[in-house]
């Protein structure tokens, strides 16, 4: 199927009324949780996973993807109006979006965020369409050693880029990998770390892990958070349209942000949070008057918002064509596919074209829906943000428990959420990244299987990782990433 045929096929698939409804539901729900600080796309997708058992895998994926990029829109709303990032991706948007709101330009800031998100998504879709066939063809050339090396690069990149203490990132990834070992070993059938608990034979429940680490920990941290309780509304929404000067200022940041986001989204292991941070620092670096940043510069909203949305779209490329999730949310979506008995990978484009092209087309339609929906919805989001957290969080807890319970019908999983929630809360206090833990957990079994296979093929010779050009490339990149901070520290010392 050529790209154009595929795209037409996808549009035909998505415009079926039933699929359209799930796409719509997904983006509305995504916006909703994005606006609600504390419940990110991660928690929402975990909550929705069980519900997707009742619908077709295509509709399920389209809905969950809608939640994912819908949350990027919603996250910007809370960042601008409340200086509370609804999602980690939109944390950067608070830097200039909130000052804009304080200057009485909340409407313009929201409009900028929406328009940038839309442009970013559209460019992301374009890149995804152009890249997909190529990536899936390239992927068939991948052997076990290449897969293992690539996933290790992904983990190293995720735990070193943008963190002050790489050791803490590595520790979380390692802990995640270790937790991924729990359960029955696929190769030998041995039970590892189950301690006689039959509930652990299939390993730790992914939904319970995600809910405990993110949902429960966020709730505990926010119950007595004064920012969360006193949601004042002094928001000038009358003027939405940006001035000609604003428009002129936002166009090139949008394009640069989209390019940056598309690139980093497609790399496994990085993702949209990193892209938005990078876009912001790039805009500030090349600005003629960098001192305006942090005081309500429209470029500081336009760049990051287009970057995180384009990254959110292109992140589907490695997830679907290689079976390698670029970030924890992608890992969760990958889990959802596997639950439905679909193995993402090089063959998916041929085996399940309706899945791939339907999803791509749904991105376009979903983003269009978001743009049309969001401008009139702003009033509703503002009203919802006024619900005190007092009333909101007990309900969130009950829904979270039921969401976990509905996966397997075991009370054990709810108990696990409590235990994992405690661990997640302590991790957040000590500033360890639970997202990296989840990434390690999801990739662990895949890495182990491929490593074992690679060594089996090479008869125990580690040179297989250097003899195969693809694997060697990843190994070199990994080593470079590991040595980069050492080199930087050495140079800093040499300077002073």
């Amino acid at each position, binding site marked *: 199927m050529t790209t154009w045929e595929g795209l037409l096929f996808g549009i035909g698939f998505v415009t079926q009324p039933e699929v359209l409804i799930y796409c719509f539901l997904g983006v509305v729900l995504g916006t909703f949780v994005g606006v609600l600080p504390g419940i990110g796309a991660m928690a929402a997708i975990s909550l929705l996973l069980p*519900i997707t058992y*009742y619908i077709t895998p295509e509709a399920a994926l389209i809905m969950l993807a809608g939640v994912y990029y819908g949350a990027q829109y919603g996250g910007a709303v809370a960042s601008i109006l409340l200086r509370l990032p609804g999602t980690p991706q939109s944390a950067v948007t608070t830097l200039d979006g909130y000052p804009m709101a304080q200057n009485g330009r909340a409407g313009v800031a929201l409009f900028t965020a929406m328009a940038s998100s839309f442009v970013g998504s559209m460019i992301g879709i374009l890149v995804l369409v152009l890249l997909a066939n190529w990536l899936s063809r390239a992927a068939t050339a991948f052997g076990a050693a290449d897969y293992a090396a690539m996933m290790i690069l992904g983990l190293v990149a995720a735990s070193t880029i943008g963190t002050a*203490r790489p*050791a*803490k990132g*590595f*520790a979380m990834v*390692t*802990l995640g*990998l*270790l937790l991924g*070992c729990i359960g029955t070993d696929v*190769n*030998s059938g*041995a039970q*590892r*770390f189950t301690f006689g608990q039959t509930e652990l034979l299939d390993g730790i429940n992914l939904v319970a892990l995600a809910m405990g680490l993110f949902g*429960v920990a966020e*709730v*505990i941290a926010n*119950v*007595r958070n004064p920012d969360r*309780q006193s949601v004042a509304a002094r928001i000038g929404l009358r003027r939405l349209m940006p001035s000609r000067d604003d428009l002129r200022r936002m166009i090139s940041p949008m394009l640069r942000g989209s390019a940056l986001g598309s690139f980093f989204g497609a790399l496994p292991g990085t993702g949209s949070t990193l892209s938005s941070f990078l876009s912001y620092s790039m805009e500030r670096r090349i600005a003629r008057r960098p001192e305006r940043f942090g005081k309500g510069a429209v470029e500081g909203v336009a760049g990051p918002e287009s970057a995180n949305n384009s990254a959110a779209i292109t992140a589907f490329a490695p997830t679907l064509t290689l079976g390698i999730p670029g970030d924890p949310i992608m890992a969760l979506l990958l889990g959802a596919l596997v639950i439905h008995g679909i193995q993402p990978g090089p063959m998916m484009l041929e085996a399940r074209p309706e899945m791939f092209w339907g999803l791509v087309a749904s991105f376009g339609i979903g983003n269009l829906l978001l743009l049309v929906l969001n401008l009139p919805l702003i009033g509703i989001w503002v009203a919802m943000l006024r619900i*005190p*957290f*007092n*009333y909101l*969080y*007990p*309900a969130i*807890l*009950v*829904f979270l*428990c*039921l969401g976990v*319970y*509905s996966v397997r019908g075991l*009370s*054990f999983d*709810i*108990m696990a*959420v*409590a235990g994992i*929630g*405690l661990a997640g*809360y*302590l*991790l957040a*206090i*000590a*500033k*360890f990244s639970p997202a990296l833990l989840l990434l390690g957990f999801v990739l662990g079994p895949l890495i*182990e299987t491929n*490593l*074992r296979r690679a*060594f*089996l093929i090479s*008869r*125990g010779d*580690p040179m297989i990782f250097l003899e195969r050009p693809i694997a060697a490339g990843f190994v070199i990149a990994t080593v470079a990433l590991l040595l980069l901070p050492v080199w930087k520290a050495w140079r800093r010392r040499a300077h002073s």
Partner: protein
Amino acid sequence: MQRDWPDIFGGLLLAILGAGAALWAAMYYDMGSLRRMGPGFFPVLLGAALFLLGLVIALPALARSAEPPKIEPATALAVLAAIVIFALSLSRLGLAGATAITVLVASLPAPRKGWVWRIVLALGVTVLTVLVFSVGLRMTLPVWPRLS
């Protein structure tokens, strides 16, 4: 300012966890060889790595000071207790009973004083939960407490 306790405790805890996992795996699972790895190979490797990383985090932190973290044991206890209570009571008290009790317990640490709003909230969330999960999603769960 005080010593960087989160990193010290966190690092040591991870080191202990890693050492424990590595030793356990080495004792009870077959290591195999590089050519044909057994079920113990990967866990031992990871446990050892976690042990080292834990030390790398904890040891430099001994000489470092940091802002004390904000911990709220009471809030954490109430929220976690609510989840445990939900898990234990779901089959006995049914969806409605378990939800009501869970909301009441969970609302304990909320800054707003008084009991009336807590009871109203418990009733409201219970109705919503039964409507969404039992009526809407047709989850197979008893709604009411078993009287026998």
